[in-house]
């Protein structure tokens, strides 16, 4: 009979409460390989946490979406003027 790894030594599974705390490190590619495998194993079984990870991705997309108001011409010209004076002094 082949030796089988006793189940008792299996690393503790990730539960949902842990998974939500690992999402940023996961999206940053900073989770150690073993933790990443455990998280991905959990995500494969848990539609709620999968939805949660998707929401975090959307959150990042929303934050990166807005372009600021462009600088007004007056401010820009005043700064170029500052640059000119410094260059010629």
């Amino acid at each position, binding site marked *: 009979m082949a030796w089988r790894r006793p189940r008792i030594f299996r690393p503790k599974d990730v539960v949902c409460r842990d998974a939500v705390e690992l999402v940023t490190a996961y999206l940053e590619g900073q989770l150690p390989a073993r933790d990443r495998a455990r998280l991905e194993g959990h995500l494969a079984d848990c539609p709620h946490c999968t939805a949660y990870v998707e929401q975090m991705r959307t959150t990042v997309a929303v*934050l990166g979406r807005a372009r600021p*108001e462009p600088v007004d011409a007056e401010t820009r010209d005043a700064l170029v003027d500052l640059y000119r004076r410094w260059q010629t002094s």
Partner: protein
Amino acid sequence: MAVETELLDRLRAGDEAAFATVVERYHAPLLRFAMTMVPTRAVAEEVVQDTWLGVVRGIDRFEGRSSLQTWLFRILANRARTAGGRERRSVPVDLQEETAVPSQRFNAAGHWTDPPAPWTDAVEDRLLASATAGRVRDLIDALPEAQRQVVVLRDVEGLTASDACEILGLTDANQRVLLHRGRSRVRSMLEQEAGEG
């Protein structure tokens, strides 16, 4: 970055069009970042003005070891700390426990009892379409200061983790904790908004 090297050469040579390009590209992002570091818009505008003065004076000494953007943001962070009278070496990470999701949403075993409702394509489109500069500022303003600074640099301006650490004087681990908490809070705000659909 070849394009940036060329821009730097032109800046050092006194090319006004190159300087105008840099102002157009970075003035508004600098102002947005300054507003995370000082209490009022008026002070933020002064800090940005002061930053440009530092740029004009220091461009010959800039060696290009970091990107131009990182250099600009670092000058600004230094000026803002001086202006705000906050002479500290780094932003402290609040050691208090802060969970990404309120613990009441899980049972004793750690499984969801109140799981997030998946966002449909229509909800995602609506959230993305409503992400104007003003709306994003409201989301950011609702964050504690240290989280706000990291989220603005990383997710609004798109800087790398190592650039954000350098600008804010943070360790990599603390930067990630602040980013995680900030993003988690913003997700929670968007979740409420999505639910009101």
